[in-house]
């Protein structure tokens, strides 16, 4: 009967193990339960967000460029707003246009830095939402069309000449970018260039820097992007001008802006949007801290804006099918 002791040991061990696992399992239950009502100490702590939603003003943004910088930028901005508004302010990172609009719709974000088109899309899904403020440059925003030198596309002087792009491959930025997609496609349409006129399918590089890279590589003959990014990359010396250059600068249009949800009025008072607007406009380039925020936005100051400014964007959005 040599096996019996052996067996007993294994039974004992087993009991012990089962008990430990049961214990651990039980300890898990209260753990996950209490995680729901523990109070958050970090802004990213969203489990407790339902409880604190009424108290915290949640801002968000779609990084359009220099996304890692935006991280810092929003830290600074929430601090500033917190001090100005005397309300806890938190920032939630979102990297996707669609996700940001959805989060705004669901009510997880109270105020978002949207692009022209996404702002309109968001407002259409949240009745009562308001365009609040924008940078000085956003009222007169431009896109630049760029081309690879090898493609033989020459600079043009007016919209009608965009037809030179016919028969070439072409890339936009992100699907819902105003400067990298919506307005450029609108201008192309006005020149009589449809997406079918390009060689192959038109691309969606997803962002402005990728557009520069892909046109530099020659993957696409030409592309279009936000002028602000182009200028910045030029200054940084990141553009190889022996390979690519601007062929045309688009007419101006309205772009980026802050959109605020109507729900803040119930939670913080009817005048809250006003207060936020004032706080944003009060950002002063002469104060070092505030100058940094403005710089990170690429702005010299914020100016008020209103929903009506985006009527044209909305109309173009409907024409192109980005708004149903």
């Amino acid at each position, binding site marked *: 009967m040599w096996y019996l002791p052996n067996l007993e040991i294994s039974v004992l061990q087993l009991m012990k193990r089962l008990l430990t696992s049961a214990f651990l399992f039980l300890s898990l239950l209260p753990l996950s339960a209490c995680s729901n009502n523990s109070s958050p100490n970090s802004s990213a702590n969203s489990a407790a967000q339902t409880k604190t939603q009424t108290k915290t003003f949640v801002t968000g943004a779609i990084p359009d460029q220099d996304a890692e910088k935006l991280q810092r930028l929003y830290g600074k901005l929430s601090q500033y707003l917190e001090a100005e508004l005397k309300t806890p302010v938190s920032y939630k990172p979102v*990297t996707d246009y669609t996700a940001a609009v959805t989060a705004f719709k669901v009510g997880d974000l109270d105020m978002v830095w949207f692009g022209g088109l996404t702002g309109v899309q968001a407002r259409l899904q949240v009745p009562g939402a308001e365009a609040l403020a924008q940078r000085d440059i956003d009222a007169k925003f431009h896109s630049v069309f760029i081309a690879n030198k090898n493609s033989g596309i020459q600079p043009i002087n007016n919209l009608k000449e965009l037809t030179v792009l016919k028969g070439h491959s072409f890339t936009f930025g992100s699907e819902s970018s105003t400067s990298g997609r919506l307005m450029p496609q609108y201008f192309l349409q006005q020149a009589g260039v449809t997406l079918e006129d390009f060689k192959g399918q038109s691309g969606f590089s997803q962002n402005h820097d990728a557009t520069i890279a892909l046109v530099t590589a020659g993957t696409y003959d030409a592309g279009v992007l936000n002028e602000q990014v182009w200028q910045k990359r030029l200054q940084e010396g990141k553009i190889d001008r022996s390979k690519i250059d601007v062929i045309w600068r688009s007419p101006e249009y309205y772009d980026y802006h802050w959109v605020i949800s109507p729900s803040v009025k119930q939670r913080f008072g009817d005048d809250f949007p006003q207060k936020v607007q004032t706080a944003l406009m009060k950002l002063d380039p002469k104060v070092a801290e505030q100058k940094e925020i403005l710089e990170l936005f690429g702005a010299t100051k914020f100016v008020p804006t209103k929903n009506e400014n985006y009527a044209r964007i909305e109309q173009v959005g409907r024409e192109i099918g980005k708004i149903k």
Partner: protein
Amino acid sequence: MSRPASRFISPSLQWGMIGLIAIALSLWQAGLFRQTVVNFNGFPLLWRFVAASVHPDLSYDLLATTLQASLVTLAYAVCGTFLSVTIGAIAGVFCSEVWWLEVLRAKRLRYFGFHSVRAILAFPRAIHELIWGLFFLNIWGLDPLVAVAAIAIPFGAITAKVFSEILDETPRQPLLALINSGVAPITAFFYTLLPQAFLNLLSYSFYRFECSIRSAAVLGIIGAGGLGYEILLSLQSLRYEQLWTFFYALLILNGGVDIASATLRNQLGCASRIDLNSHRPTKRNISNSRIFSLFPIAIAGVALSFWYIQPDLSKIGSPRSQQLLHQIVQTSLPPNFTGIAELIPLSVETVAMSVLAIAIAASGGLLLAFPAAQIFLLSGLLNRRGNANLFPLVLLVIARIVLLLCRAIPAPIWALVVLYVLFPGILPGAIGLGLHNLGILGRLFAEVIENLEQPPLKALSAGGTPNSLVFLYGVLPATMPRFLAYTLYRWEVCMRETVIVGLVGAGGLGRLLTEQLSSFDYQSLIVTLGAFLVLTFLVDWISGRVRRSLRAS
């Protein structure tokens, strides 16, 4: 006898030919024989990306970010895996043929039951995690719950499918022997089939864990945070040095899971077949108690992960969620069929892209799997003296690193990189997907080889059969069916993943889907998802047929 031709054209040859034709047609669709595909001007940019791999950004700040992001990704992966394996284990039994056929003995019900469960599971499977993520985002908002559910739902369905296939391919005779001695079928099922299949199931669960890590990374995009989010941020501004730091983190995560899984399987006696001709003393069998000592660790890991990411479980059934669910259902109905004509060419593109991707993945994976399998060169299968010499070891390490790199880097990023040197179209997308899946298939293949029954091979080898013939007569026939099963299953995954390479202009239904998502055109979106569903069914059906006809022959 009635069909003399069929003697010469065996089913495998037939399907092989069909496969080759499909690949050729897909290449044609990709424009390979019609236009230039390689863009030589893009090589300097590709080089910049590659060169950055040797000097990743190792600044303190970035490393701190990386560590934190890795923990987040890991925690999501643990939670996602836990839920998907749980779902998969339960649903997997119910959609296995052997359950309906042998356990329930439901002759008439069989077709109905079996096929309806499969059909239900095809639905969550056909839709990519990212889409699930966006769906849950619509009802739960920005909550970690979104990412966990987005992993758990489609992966649960996939796990169920694979578990059912593993169960179906496990030898049934012991089960039948017990059933026919009057044992209740369910008891017999748990007593024979599950222990037999256990190692394969476990091994697949570990693999699922790796998939979850990759998926958790991709889901970072919609706000789940973690490595995916950081990668996307760096990618958007083309900071390759930072990008590589994050890649290395993914590499370490994936590799760590790989090593952990290998060690565990070793301890569970899975690798013990290797011991047969090595000089290590045979371990006493302790598998049961080892398995049980795993449970507390696993449970603690899951608990810790849930605690770390803190999903708000109360949201699941909350009235607000229900209201939002109601709302999204309303905005998606009625479906808008106006664009349906457009779906046909796009579906063709999607299928072509997936066929090319899987062809690349399977052939590359096959090539790398053998050197990457531990038992193959190292411990004596084709190395009779049994002494591990350096060459196979080096080969093993290189093969494993290549496989790891391939699968750690997400497919859209591969596609974007490939896009530098190829002109746009479905080909860069297919290559991106192919490279990513190559790493995954290669690893799966290697594991099949490591789980291979050794005695028949030893028998061949002992009879003086040259290595090449042992390979041809012993290894290939024994591994091919499972290779094929994995390839066919991965084909379906490739098709799903065309969604995420659609982002980089790779075309197909994926691109239409992203366009519709960004236009919030849910009524048309639902029709496109329907097309995906049809394609998934198609692939499911074809792969089922192929495997059945190969098994019969």
